[in-house]
């Protein structure tokens, strides 16, 4: 997220000229086969998603409309190499307001999943995944907190079945991804 404005502009394609070599014509077909992104071709670029997006109001580059257009155009490399796709706060306003029922937040999620599979993921997700794998909880709950629960008369926290979790991490392929990331 520390990239300067020019680098960001370059990566997200605010430059006016698109090169044919940047385009992967099959990308839109591949993407629309993935659950959640089936309706990517229905977007007619009205921009309602972007007008109503809380993140777009405070960020110069996060434009859901643009992400969908880039997907339709097949600018896979530009999409998957840019940090901007990680900004969505999943408020789902775009899902509710889209006149074409495109499911924009779901497509952003598909783009993120694909980025993780083919490239990398933000550090925070490595941490969350690692916490879950080790404890079942997304955050490591400090011992002091557990003691305080007792003092406050709260029931002890349910324990995770870590063996089962490890199996699910493996079966869904996340273990492999994390190994690749070196976590």
């Amino acid at each position, binding site marked *: *997220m520390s990239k300067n404005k020019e680098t960001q502009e370059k990566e997200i394609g605010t430059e006016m000229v698109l090169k044919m070599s940047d385009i992967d014509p099959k990308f839109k077909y591949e993407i629309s086969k993935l*659950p*959640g992104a089936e309706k990517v071709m229905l977007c007619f670029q009205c921009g309602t998603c972007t007008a109503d997006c*809380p*993140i777009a109001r*405070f*960020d110069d580059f996060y434009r859901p409309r643009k992400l969908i257009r880039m997907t339709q155009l097949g600018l896979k490399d530009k999409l998957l190499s840019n*940090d901007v796709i*990680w*900004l*969505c*706060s*999943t*408020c*789902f*306003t775009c*899902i*509710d307001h889209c006149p074409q029922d495109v499911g924009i937040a779901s497509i952003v*999620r*598909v783009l*993120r*999943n694909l980025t*993780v599979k083919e490239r990398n*993921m*933000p550090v*925070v*997700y490595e941490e*969350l*995944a690692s916490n*879950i794998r080790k404890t*079942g*909880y*997304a*955050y490591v*709950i400090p011992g002091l*907190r557990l003691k*305080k*629960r007792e003092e*406050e008369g*709260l*029931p002890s*926290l*349910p*324990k*995770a*079945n870590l063996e*089962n*979790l490890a*199996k*699910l*991490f*493996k*079966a*869904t*392929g*996340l273990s492999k*991804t994390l190994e690749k990331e070196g976590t």
Partner: protein
Amino acid sequence: MPELKYLVFLGCVIPYRVSSYEISARKVLDKLGVELVEMPEFNCCGFPMDPINHDLMLTMAAQNLCLAEQQNLNIMTLCNGCFGVLNHVNKELKEDKKIREKVNEYLKEIGMEFKGTITVKHLIHVLAQDVGFEKIKDAIQKPLNPLRVAQHTGCHVVRPGQIVGFDDPENPTTLKKLIALTGAKCLDYMDETECCGNPTSGVNSEIPLQLAREKLDHVRAVGAQALITVCPFCHMMYDLQQTRIERKFNEKFRIPVLHYPQLLGLAMGMSPNELALKDLRVDASELVSLL
């Protein structure tokens, strides 16, 4: 009337940082005759894993749903995020055979199978639909008439509207009605349905702070003495981060952010201590002194 017994799904944020929500919710629900059963075993709802592996999110949520099915109990969450994921996955697996088969294939690894026999509710659904307004009204002993507050319902308890199918996502009124029962006046303000921004804070700390600042600004503009939330993640943004927001933007809000059960508990005659009001970062003692 439905049996008031639920498997309580605490999630991760509450035990990590927001116990005051759990303490007050348990106290209030107990007094309203709602029985809570603890999860026999737990893993995160799956929400934080959706951005990196959708299948893992589906399977983690499904595993929790299976645990509830084994207990033959409906789930009640306190967190909007947990509700959103568990409810969405529960509905999707019930309705979409293809996805159900895929998830059950994963679940086979751990000897489980999703059957689709339970439902998932959030605290405000339980209060509004199952306990009911009448019963809550009867439990009010000390109406909070002098108070003027604002509410933040949050996102995942109403959106996506097609999936949640509860309240109006454009103008949610359930929490407002629940607040009105306590005798406090619930004020309208600008952009009530705006997201707290917290899910973005892992990758960008600036944007959520700007969003939260704007929310607090709008709440202050109408003269609300407190902001009422029903999600630990939203609560963190407005309570835990409020001092940071004040410092960063050179503002002075000092708006106490109460969990709805804390407000309800006060109206039911419980003491601020019982309801863990002292655990709030933004001091609420001035607010309490008005009562």
